[in-house]
């Protein structure tokens, strides 16, 4: 091929590429979860069936929580997410600040069918999850029993995984310091309580490896990078399906509800509401705990879950003993302040 021919072909191809890329871009419905194993289950139980039923293409994205990205999108008028799974404090705060659309409950269904924390102005609860203590049963025959053991680096030498951020860690630090689960938030509301929590975390600081994505804790347990870690319970049980022998110590677990919310100003608002409605129906929700052991929110679906699956859920009676319900109002008031303090502390 002559150089000239090659050249004219390249130019033509380049111009074509440029022009196709520059034509108007309509956006597909974009749903956003927390990545990894739980998103895989979401994909199989909600995304794909919804796409098949409605004929709408569904694009996925994932994130690690927080309102920042959503706020930036809304502020800069470049909304690229439609339906997002958000944590409870973020849901309420985002709703107050106009980051989420009000839910079209007439589309979703009867509010009375859902458990209490699942119903709110801007969100529909999707699942109940927990942050609990996990370790590798093959590496530790006699594992940690509670958060005080988590701090015991003499008995259990090695790194510990903790979720990066103030939330959960301050509660856990207080429980490790001997505060009973029911008193955690009343202590943490006081400056002395916060001081106490940070001081306790300071004790462990050099042994901590911070995780951000839910997939990291089981991975680090498997690779031996950490000897024990906090983790989303579902990821741990799912790793065991792949032949691991990870154990969960439910003592002092912190559970919370994640909800679907629709980002304000989304150009696919109606489609997103349809999707949220689809993902809230009992017949679809009931398949979710089979894929990953998180509780669901539609009471009709809860009634249909078999006992063997229920035993691994954070909402199981036996697992709720000495458990802590994540306090949404506390975190709305304190998240910003405590996170700033946490970040400054962690970077030093």
């Amino acid at each position: 091929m002559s150089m000239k021919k090659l050249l004219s072909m390249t130019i033509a191809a380049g111009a074509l590429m440029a022009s196709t890329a520059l034509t108007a871009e309509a956006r597909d419905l974009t749903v956003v979860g927390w990545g990894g194993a739980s998103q895989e289950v979401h994909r199989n139980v909600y995304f794909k069936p919804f796409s098949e039923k409605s004929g709408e293409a569904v694009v996925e994205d994932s994130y690690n929580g927080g309102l920042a990205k959503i706020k930036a999108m809304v502020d800069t008028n470049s909304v690229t997410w439609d339906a997002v799974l958000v944590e409870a404090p973020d849901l309420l705060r985002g709703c107050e600040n106009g980051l989420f659309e009000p839910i079209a409950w007439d589309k979703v269904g009867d509010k009375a069918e859902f458990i209490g924390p699942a119903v709110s102005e801007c969100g529909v609860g999707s699942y109940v999850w927990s942050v609990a203590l996990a370790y590798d049963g093959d590496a530790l025959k006699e594992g940690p029993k509670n958060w005080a053991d988590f701090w015991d680096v003499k008995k259990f030498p090695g790194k510990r995984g903790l979720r990066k951020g103030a939330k959960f860690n301050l509660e856990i630090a207080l429980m490790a310091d001997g505060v009973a689960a029911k008193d955690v938030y009343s202590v943490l509301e006081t400056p002395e309580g916060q001081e106490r929590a940070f001081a306790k975390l300071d004790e462990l600081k050099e042994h901590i490896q911070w995780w951000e994505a839910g997939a990291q804790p089981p991975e680090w347990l498997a690779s031996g990078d950490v000897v024990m870690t906090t983790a989303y319970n579902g990821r741990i049980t799912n790793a065991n399906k792949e032949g691991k022998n990870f154990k969960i110590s439910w003592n002092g677990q912190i559970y919370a509800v994640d909800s679907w919310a629709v980002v304000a100003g989304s150009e696919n608002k109606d489609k997103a509401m349809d999707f949220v409605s689809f993902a809230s129906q009992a017949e679809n929700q009931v398949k979710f705990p089979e894929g990953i052991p998180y509780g669901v929110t539609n009471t009709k679906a809860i009634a249909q879950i078999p006992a063997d699956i229920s035993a691994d859920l954070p909402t199981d009676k036996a697992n709720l003993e000495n458990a802590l319900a994540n306090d949404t109002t506390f975190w709305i008031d304190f998240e910003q302040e405590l996170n700033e303090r946490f970040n400054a502390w962690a970077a030093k």
Partner: protein
Amino acid sequence: MKLQPYATMGQKVWFYTFLTIAGGGLLFLVLPILVIIPLSFNSSSFLSYPLDGFSFRWYEEVFHSEIWVRAIKNSLIIGSASAFLATVLGTLAAMGLTQANFRGKGAVNALLVSPMIVPIVISALGLYFFFAEIGLNATYTGLILAHTALGAPFVVITVTATLQGFDNSMMRAAASLGANPVTVFFSVVLPLILPGVVSGALFAFATSFDEVVVVLFSAGPEQRTLPRQMFDGIKENITPAIMAAATLLIMFALALLSVLEYLRRRSEKLNSPS
């Protein structure tokens, strides 16, 4: 590099120490890249040696997953479109820069290559704010424009280097024979500087193909590129599928390296006074 036959004991020790450091350094450079290739063919999901068996399953995962395929497609679209724009703009500018001297040329030159020097986080932040104002965040157009700016300096530099060996009298000869400037460019100048233009284009393509920070700031989920997909993968859950994608990118680097080497030899031959 040879040890002289009459070297003293000390010189010998020094010589071999030196060879060990240099050789070790070279291995340090190349081994990490080579070591990950076999891991992408591992039949189990563990990223350690010895391998559990040979399998293509991770390549199948990459090529059968909608997310990876979309990422590869996006990278190719954004890479070629921005390389095309960068090459056109960069080649023109390089010709201008080599044809005449004028006041402020140094400053102009500095501006043209500035995207190469400014730390990428700063470029990404500036573009993010700017695109937010004009509605170009989360669009292909925005990413292509950004990557064009990042890639153009490489075109300017490579083409300028080629043009410095270029004999301007050829252009004038063609012009005096009645050719118009466009014809002169396409039939006389371009064939001669083509190696430089093509290497510039490859540089620009590689720049876009490897860029992740601007994508992290400005792209939406639909514009997710291959490096962006890898970034998420490394951050969350590093699997052999990422090693498979990495291996594909290493092959790409090898191909790039060979083409550039070929072009370099070609242009050396063209410019040598034979």
